[in-house]
């Protein structure tokens, strides 16, 4: 009996559809959940969480596995196994600035705003850039527009929100896709069930 942590956000619907197509009855269970956070879907117990929390539940073993974006796994620095990368909901984590703003490296530290403060700092340092990061909870594009920060680090899909706010992606810092992740101990102690789930969803 595996416990699967799913993010209530934008990943849930495409994942449920793919699961149904592969004979895993997630969609029904999720639809009938209502306010409940824990639902049974055949052999699998599903936890419905905020996507930032999925890596924590999986790393600490409260969930055996989960589906969440690589951005959340890296932001939390969670020591989990990455069994499968999904094709849907792919996007890019980019350095984004106001049109006309200059973010070239002049030795002075760059002030960045981001929902992924730990990851943004890591990616900046890997490119030799000094940076200070302001953690924000949402709508980071406003931070760039109103000058709270020199630039922001956020996920870009179509880029429509950016254009609406007079912003543009400067550099792509990371390819991001949803992953099927697993707790290290569960990966070894429940090897067979893990491989089965991976084949079902990996198809």
């Amino acid at each position: 009996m595996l416990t699967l942590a799913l993010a209530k956000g934008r990943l849930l619907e495409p994942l449920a559809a793919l699961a149904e197509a592969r004979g895993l009855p997630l969609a029904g269970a999720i639809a009938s959940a209502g306010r409940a956070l824990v639902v049974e879907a055949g052999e699998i117990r599903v936890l419905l969480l905020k996507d930032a929390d999925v890596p924590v539940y999986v790393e600490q073993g409260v969930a055996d596995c989960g589906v969440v974006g690589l951005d959340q796994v890296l932001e939390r620095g969670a020591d989990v196994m990455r069994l499968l990368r999904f094709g849907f909901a792919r996007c890019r984590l980019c350095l984004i600035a106001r049109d006309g703003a200059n973010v070239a490296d002049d030795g002075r530290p760059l002030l960045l705003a981001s929902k992924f403060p730990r990851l943004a700092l890591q990616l900046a340092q890997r490119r030799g850039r000094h940076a200070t990061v302001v953690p924000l909870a949402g709508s980071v594009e406003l931070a760039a527009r109103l000058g709270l920060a020199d630039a922001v680090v956020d996920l870009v899909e179509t880029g429509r929100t950016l254009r609406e706010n007079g912003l543009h992606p400067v550099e792509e810092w990371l390819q991001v896709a949803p992953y099927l992740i697993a707790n290290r101990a569960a990966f070894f102690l429940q090897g067979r069930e893990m491989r089965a789930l991976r084949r079902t969803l990996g198809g």
Partner: protein
Amino acid sequence: MTPQAGVPTGVLTLSGEALRRQRGAERRCVELLEAEGFQLIHLPVLEYADGEPAAGYRFVDRAGRLLALRTDFTPLAARVLAPALAAGPLPLAVCYAGEVVRPQPARLRQLPELYQLGFERYGAGGDGVGVLALALRLLGVAGVPAARCHVTVSAAGLAEKLLAQLLEEPPDAELVELLRVRDLDGLGATVALGEPARAALEAALFGEDDTLWADFFGLREEVAGLAALRRAAEAAGASAGVDVAPRAAGEYYRGAMFSIWGRATRAILGGGGEYAVALPAGEVAAVGASIALGVALEEAG
């Protein structure tokens, strides 16, 4: 006397029944090891940390040298026993018990202070199989039957060898990390993988049919070694599997390595492997293992 504001968060404070159980288990383990010819030694709390990566609590002492609280007994034992190893006679077999301090414990509940109990054998023909068997017996004496253990066996540098076959130049740390977290798709995006290579790598990473990837990567000998370790674990009553890219506690392992997991706590109860001590006069082969007594007692319930 006005006691100041408490003790650093999460520092080990034990009393009553919990402490009695731990001292009882420690005594039984030490008796077993002494019976097996391991001489008990007391290792110092402080060690020089000049070259060490920034793991434990580090500080600069009065002579300007960098000191650190011990984070792992194995390298400390090698350093303290270096004169004896150089002078010999070998083999030399020691065992030890005490706290090590790791500020960032993996598991949330775990305290930074870990009660480690272990043994090292220097200069003998000793090998991974014998050490694994003894480690499982130690856990048994501490109250954790082998049936509740799962052993992941590996060989140091195996991940690097796999990658070396797929790349021209030596694999960098990031690619090895991708293997450690089994990110096959992530690797496929950075390294051009032909279908057969991808299938072999998948078999290796997800621990199915060993012979398939052993042949493909020409690692029949290493895989045979792993099989011997697995049989030793299964013979002792534990389940076992191959971990082709382990997150070893110490970077110093060369040759066979293993970790022992507890089914209830789903935590690492112990581990060990083969390594070598580089001395001015030449290398001394060594093998050893240790168990985290506190975690083992949690697993014993």
